[in-house]
Structures are given as C-alpha cells and as structure tokens.
C-alpha cells in the first residue's frame, strides 16, 4: 500500500468563482475514498481534474508519483463512471464495453473474451447486442461500470454513479460496487452528496465544503469525532450548542451557553474562554425530571416522532432552539408541555473549535492593534 494519487495545493478558479481552494489530498492505493459534499462544493470539479477534463488553475496532481497535469484524458491511466452514464447511444452494449480495449488495439479475440468475462461479472450476459436505449437504469449503470473497469485502470473515478437510480436499486448497487472494488483491488474515488452512501461504502471520506476539505477520515471517525461544525451537522443528525469553555478538569470541559452550561470531554487543543461548539448525537442524549449534575439545561417537550424502533423527542430550549433526543420505543415518555432536564455522558459529546469565532477574534485583534 502506498500513495497512488497526490493533489498538492490545487486551485480551480472559473472567472471570479473559486471552486476548489488550495486542496491537498492523498489517496492510498486500493482504498475506497469518497468525496462527500453538497452540490457546488467542488467535489465533481476535483474528480474532473484528476480525470483530465479540467485543468487545475494552480497546483499539481500526481498519479503514482508522476505529474499528469500536462496529460490528456486519453493518456491517463484512470477511468471514469459518469453521472449520466454517457453510454454511446449508437453502439451496442458489447461495443460500448469493448471501446477502451479497441482504442488500445487489443487483439479482437482477447477483446471478445475480456468483454464477455466482464459482462458476466456485472451480470449482463446476453445483452451484447442490445443498445443503451433498450436497457433499464440499473443495467445502464452496470454497462458504465463494466466499460470503465475492463481497462484495468489504477484508479476508477465515479461521479455520483447511483444518483439516477431508485432507492432500492441504489442500496443493491452500493453493495455490488463495494464487492467489485474489493475483488479487483482497484482504487475508487467516489463522488456523492449522499452521506449514507458515503458511510456505507467508503474506507475514508473527504468532506468538502466551499472548495475546502473539512475533514478526511474513516466513516467512524467522521461520525464520532467531527472536526468542524459543518461536518458535525452534515453527517447524521446532531444537536449543537455554541458556547464558551469556562473550565477544564481531567479532560472534561464545562461549556457555558447562552442559557445554561453543559459538560463534554475535551483535549489539550482547547483553552479556557475559547468559544466552541458542543455536538451531541440524538442517541446519546438523556433527560431527567430533575437537574443533572454539571448540566444547567432546561427544555420543554414539544412533540414525538416515531421512526420504527426508536422515537424522537423534540424539545425546545428557552432561546427557541430545538433539540432531538432519541429513546427506544416502549420507554416511558414525558407529557407534551412538561419540563425536562437534558444531559449526556460527557464522553459521548464532542467539542469542536468554532471557526467563526476565530474570525471574530482575529477581527478584534486587528481593531485593538
């Protein structure tokens, strides 16, 4: 295992639109890396720069240690699965899949063998002579994947490949893609805006936001230790509290909020009087009918939402902010309108540096100077 792709200081600017900002990213050989973010965050542009359809404004892209900015898409040993599939409408399924091999001037007999093998692998045997317009969405998807994989690329780039499929098919294809990736041991770089898809499939996820990677880590790390407020709110459901660190003892900080105080684990990177955000997942939230030690938090029960095996309590704080608290169905419930005292195990919460606060602080310093 070594580094296969390395992006260093990559910027992409369209006119006045700074789409990718000073991006540094290394992709390990054989891993499944997902670029996750909402539309316009720069994830597709990043992928297209690796494929060679876009050129970085500045910065370098290396594949296996070799700079490739000067290389044309057809000279790069990476292949792409397109969001729209981009199947050639005038070619049969066989010819679509054989296209890359034909370009490499592979002997005809070998092409035939490899195409039929590949069609078998993606369960499309018997469709050789059909045209793309005669296939369903899921089948087109398989053709697109087969067409790219048959070239045995070092890296496969996938741009929201499951976006056009319905939910059930999407779930099925997620597993299939993961299986293919493991079997062929090819590096996948996968672009999606679907966090669940990212969490299910990836070895590592890069969360992109406004052209910047906010966090690059394993799904577990990202879920449990979000690095920024954006990551915390983007991945899964969470409750956030903005406040000021007022004391730190034995790795647990007390954070004073607008209307109360809470406790949460913290590390050495935090300082007393630093503004920070506490993030607690709904499943880690607890509540009681009397105040809990170390927590000064009062809320009123607003509503209950049943979600299968669990039930979500919506409670509201005096400042109007709403929190979600998950309980198992069947547990005793407080009455709507009653007063409760939320708390959690300080080890279950995450304390996050508050970027926006840093900006205010910097501005203050400039003013003072």
């Amino acid at each position, binding site marked *: 295992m070594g580094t296969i792709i390395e992006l260093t200081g990559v910027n992409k600017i369209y006119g006045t639109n700074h789409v990718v900002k000073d991006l540094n990213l290394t992709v390990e050989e054989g891993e499944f890396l997902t670029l996750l973010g909402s539309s316009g965050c720069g994830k597709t542009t990043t992928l297209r720069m690796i494929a060679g359809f876009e*050129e970085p404004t500045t910065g370098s892209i290396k594949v296996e240690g070799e700079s490739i*900015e*000067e290389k*044309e898409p057809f000279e790069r040993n990476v292949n792409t699965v397109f969001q729209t599939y981009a199947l050639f409408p005038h070619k049969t399924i066989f010819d679509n899949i054989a296209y890359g091999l034909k370009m490499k001037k592979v002997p005809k007999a070998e092409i035939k063998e490899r195409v039929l093998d590949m069609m078998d692998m993606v369960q499309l045997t018997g469709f050789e002579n059909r045209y793309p317009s005669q296939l369903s969405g899921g089948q087109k998807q398989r053709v697109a994947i087969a067409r790219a994989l048959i070239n045995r690329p070092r890296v496969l780039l996938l741009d929201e490949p499951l976006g056009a499929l319905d939910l059930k098919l999407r779930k099925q294809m997620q597993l299939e893609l993961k299986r293919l990736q493991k079997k062929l041991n090819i590096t996948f770089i996968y672009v999606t805006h679907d966090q669940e898809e990212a969490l299910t499939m990836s070895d590592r996820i890069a969360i992109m936001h406004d052209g910047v990677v906010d966090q690059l880590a394993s799904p577990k790390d990202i879920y449990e230790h979000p690095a920024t407020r954006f990551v915390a709110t983007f991945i899964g459901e969470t409750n956030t509290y903005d406040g000021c660190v007022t004391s730190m003892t034995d790795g647990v900080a007390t954070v004073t909020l607008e209307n109360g105080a809470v406790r949460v684990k913290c590390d050495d990177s935090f300082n007393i009087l630093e503004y920070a955000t506490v993030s607690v997942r709904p499943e880690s939230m607890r509540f009681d009918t009397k105040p809990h030690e170390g927590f000064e938090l009062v809320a009123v029960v607003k509503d209950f939402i049943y979600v299968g095996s669990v039930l979500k309590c919506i409670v509201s704080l005096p400042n109007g902010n709403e929190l979600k608290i998950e309980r198992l169905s069947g547990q005793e419930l407080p009455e709507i309108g009653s007063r409760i005292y939320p708390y959690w195990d300080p080890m279950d919460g995450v304390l996050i540096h508050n970027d926006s606060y840093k900006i205010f602080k910097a501005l203050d310093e400039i003013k003072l100077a």
Partner: protein
Amino acid sequence: MKNMSKHDLKSNTIPAVVTVGPVALLLLLLVLAPLILVTVMSLCQTDEFYNVVYRFTLVNYSKLLSPDYIKIYGQSLLIAFITTLICVLIGYPFSYVIARTKSKKRQLFYMLVIIPFWTNSLIRIYGWRTFLGSSGWLNKLLMAMGVAAEPIELLYKTGTTVLGMVYCFIPFMVLPLYTAIEKLDASLLEASSDLGARPVKTLFEVILPLTSSGLFSGCIMVFIPCLGYFFVSNILGGGNTDMIGNLIERQFKSANNWPLGAALSIILIVVTLILVKIYQKLGGDMDSLGV
C-alpha cells in the same frame, strides 16, 4: 489570453481553429466581403461603357426615388404582403390538420408537401403558365362547361403573379407551422376546454400563442424572398407585375448599371434587416428559419 496553457491550446484553440476556421473563412469571403462590396459599389459611378468607377456619388440613391421605381416598390410590397397573407390563411389550417393527424399517415402527408419541390421550380411555374394559358387546361375546361365562350386571359396579371408566389412559398409557411403545431401538447387543448373555453377561444388563447413562433418564422420566410423572386413575375406576370427583384436583375443582366442595381439591393437588405429585427422582438428564434 495571456497565459494560454498547453492544455488550453490542445483542448480549445486548435480544435476551434480546425472546426470553425473553414466556415469562418467562407462566411467572410463569400458573405460578408461581397455584401460590403455591394454597399461600396452602390456609392460608385459608372463610365460611358458602364464600367464601375470607384468614385463616390449618391446619384444611384437619388435614382431610387424616381416615381416609376417607387410604384414598383409599392407593388412589390403589396404582392409580398398578399402572398404572405394567403399563405397564412391556407397554410395554417392545412398545417394544423396534417400536424394533428394521429396516424402514421402524418409522415406521408408531410412528405407530400415536400415532394413537389424536387421538381425544378421554374418548370412548375411554367406548368402553371401552361395550365392557365389561352389554350391551357383551365380555359378548355371552362369552355367545355360553357362558362366561357372564348379563352379568358388569365396570365400577366397581378393575381397570376401572386398565385405563382403563393405556390413557390407555401411550403416555407407550412413547414415551420407544422413543426410548431406538432409540438403542441394535446392536453393543453383539453385543459383549455375543461376550463370552459369554447373552441374559438381556445384557438386565440392557447393554440395561436403557442404556435406563433412557427407563424412568425413562416411569414419571414415567405415575405422576404418573395421580394426578390424575379422569375415568377417574368413567367406569369409577363413584365406587368415587376418587383424589386426584376429591377435589380435588369441592372445586372441587361441595363448593365451595376451601381444602381447595388443601390436597389440595399433596399432589400434594409427591408430584411427591419423585418428580422421585428421578428426577433416578437421572440422569434433565428435558427428555426433554417430548419
């Protein structure tokens, strides 16, 4: 571009030159340059042998204002206008019927409009002359039916020229209308009648507004070329129904006063520009004029 990279050169500049270069060259040399030259020539004189002398004068433009010419401009505009009007009145209902035909026959009906155009247009116009002439089929029929005692002179009248023009240009009205009407979603008509509109109301509130693009481009494609179709009035009008096109043709082919002919062409260019501007103002798509 200052920092044109190698990538940009390969992926944009070179392909752009290779693909657009030929058509750009063609348009510059065979469309723009000739029209500029015509404009320049319209401001030039001729010597006694009718050779063009490139010396500035406005004499050609002053000749444009002679009463004889003005009469012909009026006649041209009138013929073009009547032709367009008749093309609309015949072409709209006709296109509507064939475009709303549900069966496979629709393709056939469409082709039947185009097929006559594969026969040379001159010979078809001549066919009309044969048909309408004093010993033509129509006169024979009229006399056989006892409607006329002797052959009626049907040729060499304004009406005959209009007939020839309508004949030449009706497909240019029908084809864009057909395209526009075919695109019309039948559920819109049902919605309109569902909401209480009578058929006539539906026509004016829904059908016409939604097919106006086809109507406008049809009118442009009939009216403008009509002004220049000199051979129709030559064959059917026999010199009695001259149009601007006939005046221009004469300056270049017999009277040999090219600068004057050029000045007359400028009139057509100006009329075209004005009508195209109006067309664009009405929301017309330029591309639909050529398909």
